[in-house]
């Protein structure tokens, strides 16, 4: 019988688990030994068991298409991604440092604007950001934290360096899949998990609840917390319902809430109106309040901004926090860390060319075929150019798009992002992956042990987004000490 590792290659990128086809890294010794002890048919059985569990648990996401919205089962690869806890400790510190600096920056943008006044970032960059909300100027959320929940995307380059690719500060999603992935792994490989010292992740809901309580308007020690969802047809509805259930909060839609003349938010219950203290909102700023933002929004709550500004309700993340979730602003994060914290950044940025700068623009246009070019404000991997994978025609078309709106584009070198063994038709093959840890900041700061590993299931693809053929893996942070 042929080995499941046959023809496995680690030539093209850093592999998270293997030095080579025959030699696992120290962190994956246990896993490889175990996999090699299984028959090929056993591995297939586990894969089927995992798929069944996903169907039964109803872990799904919604794909929008011309034929309507379809609930798809969450694509999951049973082979975990593994990292040494010693490396993780450093990353965790780096993530806390980064979010702390980002929150200082957002407070500053809506306050003194010292960073701008001292010429650290052009005021034009802020003013032209579509996520800068002038309505938020002068607001002071509790603990001076605007981005309470952050999902930061990390990728590893060929030389092993871990880079921050982007900070998702608006309504980052994926944490429920991280939690469910572990539940599935426990079902599928119970005997394997017993022998390995993996850091637990299931304390996330507790920390989320603590964080949300910590930002409640001060006069309340048992705050009423709700999760605000755009509704059952949203692609992340599964996650909204899951998180509400996990933290014992009500899951509400815009129509369930009302802001009264006293500028307080209430929900409509069987007992009448009930006051709400904290809203974990999963609706974009644009749709939050038709009184202030998009007038045509049917998802939000009229008067919500009034209530928030009056200090009667906390919103997580705070409106306007997205100003730091902009790929141009991203380029300035290392400088923010130095400026606000007087520290050196622990996690490096990917080198970034800002098309708003003449020099950078020229460089980008001259090297389009080698670079990744992204719009400043899109998410989900849409509207970007991966130079090395694009046809000459696509490159030329993109050149015109950039020229028309340079402020909105950035260029980055195409990283050979790392791979991990992934089960493909009964064999293991290297597939590119990234990592999205989740960071919570309120009174305290918390980082998940690991995060959501997303994997590009298509051979050679670098796009890990679930909406575009990506899947996910369980992520193990392993304690290697004493071994």
């Amino acid at each position, binding site marked *: 019988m042929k080995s499941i590792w046959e023809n496995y290659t680690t030539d093209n990128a850093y592999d998270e688990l293997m030095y080579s086809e025959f030699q696992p890294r120290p962190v994956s010794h246990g896993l490889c030994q175990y996999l090699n002890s299984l028959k090929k048919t056993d591995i297939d059985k586990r894969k089927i068991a995992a798929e069944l569990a996903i169907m*039964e648990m109803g872990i799904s996401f919604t794909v929008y298409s011309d034929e309507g919205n379809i609930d798809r089962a969450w694509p999951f690869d049973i082979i975990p991604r593994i990292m040494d806890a010693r490396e993780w400790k450093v990353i965790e510190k780096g993530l806390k440092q980064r979010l702390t600096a980002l929150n200082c920056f957002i407070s500053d943008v809506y306050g003194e604007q010292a960073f701008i006044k001292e010429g650290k970032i052009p005021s034009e960059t802020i003013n032209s950001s579509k996520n800068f909300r002038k309505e938020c100027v002068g607001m002071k959320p509790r603990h001076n934290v605007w981005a309470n929940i952050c999902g930061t995307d990390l990728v590893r380059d060929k030389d092993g360096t871990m880079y921050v690719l982007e900070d998702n500060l608006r309504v980052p999603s994926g944490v429920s899949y991280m939690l469910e992935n572990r539940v599935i792994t426990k079902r599928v490989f119970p005997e394997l998990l017993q022998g390995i010292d993996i850091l637990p992740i299931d304390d996330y809901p507790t920390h989320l609840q603590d964080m949300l309580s910590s930002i409640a308007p001060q006069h309340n020690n048992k705050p009423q917390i709700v999760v605000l969802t755009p509704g059952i047809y949203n692609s992340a509805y599964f996650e909204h*319902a899951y998180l509400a259930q996990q933290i014992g909060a009500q899951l509400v839609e815009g*129509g369930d809430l009302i802001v009264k003349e006293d500028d307080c938010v209430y929900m*409509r219950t069987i007992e009448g109106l009930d006051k709400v203290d904290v809203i974990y909102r999963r609706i974009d700023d644009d749709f939050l309040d038709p009184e202030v933002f998009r007038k045509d929004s049917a998802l939000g709550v009229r008067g919500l901004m009034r209530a928030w500004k009056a200090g009667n309700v906390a919103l997580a993340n705070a409106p306007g926090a997205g100003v730091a979730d902009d790929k141009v602003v991203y380029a300035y994060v290392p400088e923010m860390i130095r400026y606000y914290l007087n520290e050196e950044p622990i996690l490096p940025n990917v080198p970034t060319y800002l098309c708003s700068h003449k020099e950078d623009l020229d460089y980008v246009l001259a090297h389009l075929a080698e670079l990744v070019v992204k719009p400043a404000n899109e998410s989900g991997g849409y509207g970007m150019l991966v130079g090395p994978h694009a046809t000459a025609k696509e490159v030329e078309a993109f050149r015109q798009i950039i020229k028309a709106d340079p402020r909105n584009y950035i260029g980055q070198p195409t990283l050979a992002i790392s791979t991990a063994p992934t089960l493909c038709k009964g064999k293991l093959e290297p597939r590119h992956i990234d990592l999205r840890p989740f960071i919570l900041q309120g009174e305290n700061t918390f980082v998940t042990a690991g995060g959501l590993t997303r994997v590009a299931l298509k051979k050679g693809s670098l796009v890990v987004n679930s909406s575009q053929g990506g899947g996910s893996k369980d992520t193990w942070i392993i304690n290697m000490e004493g071994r």
Partner: protein
Amino acid sequence: MLSRSAERLYWLARYMERTENTAKLVSVHMNLLMDLPKGVEMGWQQLVRISGSEQEYYEKHKVANERNITRFLLTDASYSGSLFSSLSAARENIRTSRELLPDEAWEQVNEMYLFTKCNLDTIANRRSRVLFLKEILKGCQRFTGLLSGYMSHNHPYRFIRLGRNLERADMTSRILDLASLLLAESRSDELRQYETILWVNILTALNALLMYRQHVRSRVKGDDVLNFLLLDTNLPRSVSRCLVEISDCINQLPNHDGLPQRLAELEGYVQAIDTHQTTQLQLRAILDDLQNKLGELHGQIADNWFLRAAE
């Protein structure tokens, strides 16, 4: 508790109860037909009749045979009263109220839905239909049991009980409607001869045979069965018991306004029925009236709790 959530849980329970009742009804009917000799006027069309969907059925099918009717009642996704439609609606309601219920409840309903979806074609065959229905009934029992054992008996739970018992009372009254047909003076001698078998099956459809034997302690007789299924306040599926449950929930829910009073009237109305004294025609009129009253009760519950959103 959100008004919207209350409404979804109420409907979740109604649809789950409807799923169970449909499965039970088809399953008992299959048994009954196996006992009766060919040619007795007790055919499959009676099932369509009590579900009140004759018109829709005959728009789709010319013949009322086993194959068409079981497909119509069990797996026809375009007929809103079919088992598959009920289960799909239940799943949609629970999918959108997961934050109020134990995980297992969602997984249970989701599993049943996936199971049904995979077995839509197998029900044409009698043997696999028997297995299918058994699995559905088991699933419904598991669902009810795990809510009772895993969930706090709080307001959300009360809305579930409310929905379940209203649906149950409605179904029992429909089954009694069917039974009253059997009392028709015009019934054939042959049918009279097999009457006991019919009544036993009615009791079985409502899981009431054992309790009837213990409680009524006489041979199975039509008017006794009717009385038992309408008036006994301990039998889970009797109309009176359902009303006791509904009244219990309503009294414990906030802002119940005039509902307890209306319910007391309804309970009084049912208790005043005496099947020993009524003709078949009178009985049918009473049952029709009862179904209308249950419909009104639903309207009052909705007005009282679900529409508060408009305030």
